[in-house]
């Protein structure tokens, strides 16, 4: 069971993993294949494979290009582009309910990310020191929301909130988001904890560190990257969610997904909102990919000085 969940995790956090994966192996096959490249047949397959990949990329980016393009449409039509205008952006900033849905989405995502990252990390550290049987059982149960279809998780939580008579609203929305985010945090922190050398923390304790100090000065710094991945994952899961929110938010507390789904007619302001999202996501990912490179460069510059 753990297999599938970590795979899904790998899929979502591929941005981080991919660099690891590809730099790990150096391929002798590349060199041995070199002389054959001059043959025309090799050339043709290369053209074929590149055009195939370009087609796939076009397919993958088509809806995003469409969202951005039609957000600037001067007409109302979702199918014919009549000219450039910013009217849908203006309309977006005048639409209270849409702005509120953005606010709700962000608040819920931030709160559930913070809570689930803290709870998940603390739980993972605790579990890594638990007896094998307890750990296995808890991790299997922890996997349930990852493996279960969203809709099953969603109605289960709804039944729970209904029967303990919590009014659906912001609270149920946040609680349900936290509960599907924690498992992902645990799944990304746990493997890193297993790689840790226990002796380092033991040594800190022997040298007189309090358990709290050993935790915050020794263990947490070592697993910080995994915690960050978990938090990022939780944040994107929460932003992306529709199903769980749909069943667990009260009337009036709409996330973006719920708002868009409930619209009767096609509204190009949604394209404008999506475009803003695309810009923000692109900036974040650009930063996330640039920062390690810049850090590397800095580290390389400093190294010779030390040596």
């Amino acid at each position, binding site marked *: 069971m753990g297999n599938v969940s970590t795979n899904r995790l790998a899929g979502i956090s*591929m941005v981080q993993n991919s660099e690891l994966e590809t730099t790990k192996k150096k391929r002798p096959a590349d060199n041995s294949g070199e002389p054959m490249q001059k043959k025309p047949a090799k050339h043709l397959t290369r053209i074929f494979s590149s055009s195939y990949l370009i087609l796939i990329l076009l397919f993958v980016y088509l809806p995003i290009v469409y969202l951005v393009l039609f957000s600037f449409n001067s007409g109302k039509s979702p199918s014919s582009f009549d000219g450039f205008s910013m009217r849908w952006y203006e309309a977006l900033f005048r639409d209270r309910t849409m702005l509120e849905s953005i606010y709700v989405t962000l608040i819920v995502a931030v709160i559930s990310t913070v809570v689930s990252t803290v709870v998940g990390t603390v739980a993972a550290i605790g579990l890594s020191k*638990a007896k094998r049987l307890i750990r296995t059982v808890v991790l299997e149960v922890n996997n349930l929301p990852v493996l279960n279809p969203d809709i099953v998780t969603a109605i289960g939580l709804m039944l729970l909130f209904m029967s303990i008579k919590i009014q659906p609203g912001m609270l149920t929305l946040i609680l349900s988001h936290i509960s599907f985010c924690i498992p992902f945090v645990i799944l990304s922190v746990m493997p890193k904890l297993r790689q840790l050398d226990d002796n380092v923390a033991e040594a800190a304790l022997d040298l007189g560190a309090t358990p709290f100090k050993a935790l915050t000065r020794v263990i947490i710094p070592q697993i910080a990257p995994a915690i960050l991945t978990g938090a990022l994952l939780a944040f994107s899961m929460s932003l992306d969610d529709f199903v769980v929110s749909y069943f667990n938010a009260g009337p009036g507390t709409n996330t973006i997904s719920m708002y868009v789904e409930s619209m009767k007619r096609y509204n190009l302001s949604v394209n404008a909102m999506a475009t803003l999202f695309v810009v923000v996501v692109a900036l974040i990912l650009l930063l996330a990919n640039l920062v390690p490179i810049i850090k590397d460069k800095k580290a390389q510059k400093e190294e010779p000085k030390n040596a």
Partner: protein
Amino acid sequence: MKSFFRMSYPYILWIGIFIVAPMLMIFLYSITNTGNETLTFQFTADNFARFFRDPDFVRILITSLRIALLTTIVCLLIGYPAALFIANLSDRKQTFMILLMTLPMWINMVLKTYAWRGILMNFDFASEFKVFIGMVYDFLPFMIIQIHTAIAKLDPNLLVAAHDLGANKVKSFLKVTLPLSVPGIISGITLVFLPAVSSFFIPKMLGNGNVVLIGNLIEMCFKKTGDWNFGSAISLIMALIIITSMWATKKLDRSAQED
């Protein structure tokens, strides 16, 4: 260090309330017919019987399975060559391609489906076909990434050896690359088929109300008819299908790796 174990207590309590209890509630609702309002349970298997007795419901189940299966097959057919071609690129290009493939996954799924609704408005396709396009779009990256990971892990020396032993490109693909990428194919299939069976948002948004899948049926029970007992029973049936197919693919995976 053992004392650190205590840190997991709050989460074990949390798991009990927010994971175990909801599952038990679904189970309880599915085998009763009055709910727990008055705390007098009427146990019954009626909810399950009702589903299988009604040809309409069985048809919905079959449609869900058919669309999910078709989506999986098409994702595999389109995704395998893509994963293979990516794996043949230089390391730097590979990283870049995978980044390009995963970037759109960070954009809200509802917004992307909304975009597809706009795009597909220009075409006079059948509703079911529109739903199918939306599903292939949504799940294709999972398939590509899983298969690519499996192929990228292969030891390149195996292909060199196959070449030295006289195998041509096609043969070394069929005898080396393909069999060794089976685990990737299988996890790709799981990651596409399972969410596709339970999907209820894509048919809702792209199907114009003409495509009712099992997820939509569950939604109807909870949001429209208020028949929670029946809805819970359908959820359990769906969970059972998913557990069975996961068990089957796992078994397949194991036998493939033993070969």
